[in-house]
């Protein structure tokens, strides 16, 4: 019942520097691919949220005015976080199906694949961050030391996205329409996350259901540290972290099982 790899081979594969090199080269490849397929290249990373912002500013400042101070910063912070979540999760869901040749490589550490996708998303997030800072400064927001909590929020969102991706990518092997269904669901959740409207507009009686969406708290936490200069809601963060800590190993196990099944069923 076992396949044993003795000797340096296995240890080598699990040595951290090797995994780091592998992650870097796969992320690098993903970046180059997006860059090469369009004339504007990496600029799309910035153009996409800026266009979204433009539309929201038009609709909610001119057509149906909502009273949110520093609206540009408010929406842009929400968009960056949400777009990272949405794009990475959607792409990672198809990752087993689209990486057959990698999975067929002897001893390829399959579990790295969703991590690669989410890391690529993180890099796009980081590339757009200076624009967000520019918006904050234009809106006259004072940056405070709580901004140093930013990496913690990013790590949390990263881990949460990867855990979800493990589950969904595994499910996508059995049900090939998972990715399409997810596309629709993500679009719905975009409206159930406070990206372009104010959280305070949610009536109390709906709050208990509405607050079950982890992205509500993650998006709000980004705004707390970046815009409002207050520490994030540690309670919510601890709950999401705990949830992720349970989800990750389960998803990881399922993901490995399903990717193996996928290459066996040639």
């Amino acid at each position: 019942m076992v396949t044993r790899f003795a000797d340096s081979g296995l240890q080598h594969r699990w040595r951290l520097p090797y995994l780091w090199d592998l992650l870097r080269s796969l992320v690098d490849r993903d970046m180059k691919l997006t860059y090469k397929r369009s004339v504007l290249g990496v600029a799309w990373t910035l153009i996409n949220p800026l266009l979204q912002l433009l539309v929201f500013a038009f609709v909610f400042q001119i057509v149906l005015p909502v009273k949110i101070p520093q609206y540009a910063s408010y929406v842009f912070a929400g968009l960056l976080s949400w777009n990272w979540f949405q794009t990475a999760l959607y792409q990672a869901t198809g990752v087993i199906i689209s990486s057959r040749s990698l999975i067929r490589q002897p001893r390829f550490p399959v579990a790295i694949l969703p991590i690669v996708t989410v890391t690529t998303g993180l890099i796009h997030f980081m590339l757009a961050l200076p624009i967000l800072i520019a918006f904050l400064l234009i809106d006259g927001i004072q940056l405070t030391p709580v901004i140093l909590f930013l990496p913690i929020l990013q790590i949390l969102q990263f881990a949460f996205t990867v855990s979800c991706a493990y589950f969904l990518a595994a499910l996508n092997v059995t049900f090939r329409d998972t990715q399409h269904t997810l596309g629709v669901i993500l679009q719905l959740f975009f409206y159930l996350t406070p990206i372009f409207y104010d959280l305070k507009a949610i009536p109390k009686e709906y709050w208990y259901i509405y607050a079950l969406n982890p992205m509500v708290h993650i998006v709000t936490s980004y705004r707390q540290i970046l815009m409002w200069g207050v520490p994030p809601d540690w309670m919510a963060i601890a709950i999401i972290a705990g949830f992720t800590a349970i989800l990750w190993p389960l998803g990881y196990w399922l993901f490995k099982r399903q990717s193996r099944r996928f290459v066996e069923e040639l």
Partner: protein
Amino acid sequence: MRHAITVSNLSKGFKHYHTGKPTTFMEAMLSGLRQMQPIEQFWALQDVSFSVAPGEMLGIIGHNGAGKSTLLQLIGGVGYPDKGKIQVRGRVGALLDLGAGFHGDLTGRENVLVTAIVAGLTASEVKQRFDSIVEFAELKQFIDSPVRTYSTGMQMRLAFSVAVHTCPKVLLVDEFLSVGDLSFQAKCLQRIAELKEKGCAIVLISHSAEQIQELCDRALWLRQGQVVAYGEPEVVAGQYISEMRSQTQQRTPNRPAQLTGSGAELRINENRFGSLEIEITNVKLLPLDTIESGESLCVEIEYNAPQAIKSPIFSIAISQEDGQTCLDINTLDMQVPMTIVQGKGNLKLQIERLDLKQGNYFVDVGIYEKDWAYAYDFHWHTYLLTVNSSYSNKGILAPPMRWEINTLPVLRDLSMIN
């Protein structure tokens, strides 16, 4: 000595699912998860045991679907055995689907960096070996062009080069040596021999008994997931070939002698072999069965298949009376698309020039099962071809040629001095 690969009592099963197994959420909801359970299990590999020492090359032979590729995958650590044990020592390199991991939009350089790291090298190791990888693949000028501009041969060369430069301790090779041109194939073989010398254990899959005999130290014959024979390659390959012959003989039905449409006599198990699921009803040599050397020849096979036969292989060979083969070709190797054959039909091989020396030849014609498992109908030494020529020639070839005689100017000058 410690073995590089030890496989003991390995079994691997696959599950068969209902053909109506839902593949989408929607279908699953509608059918209520009833058809998600497997309906039967079959064994792709059963109780397989062998070992390969460092520096040894094992050849695995068998028909399609015998479990060869499954075995290779399991050794590579893709998938797990259901029973038994596999032990592998050292880094595994694989020549499985060469070039499949390349991305057309990226340059050769970028692809090499990614593939080599995926194959198990660290970034600094790749940096050290990069030049030698490119040099071996003979792609120096093209390394910064996108891989989509490469020919298939160039992609294969690059992939092969990356794989051998990972210095594997165990190398898995699946039906290779269709890599690039002949000189590159020779280079690959030499490289594999070098790795072997350095103590790399190699497992090679092939359906060619000759290749196994030529290259391997040991051979393993798989049939429907079970080991039929394991040992000296000459012995195993011999058994494999004779099994194919006896399969054909067993399937040859008894039938009185028959005449073909053009009057040749066919006697079962003398000059005719095969199960006769497809019959060759006539073979015509056109325009005539006597030609001048260098003229064209058309071999027309008329056949009749009472029942539908899936992708049969048609083969035509021309040999001298003493048995020397001059031409031996088939539709599979030449990648002639063959689908289902049913009813009467004919197939022609048009040879533009037949540049053979004068003499008598036999044209042997056969139709085989799609994996060469046995012959449907094979007519041996039945059709005579005569080639005439205006001069005699002791070799085989008689290409168009002429002598050109020039008096050497040097000699003339010398004679003038004298």
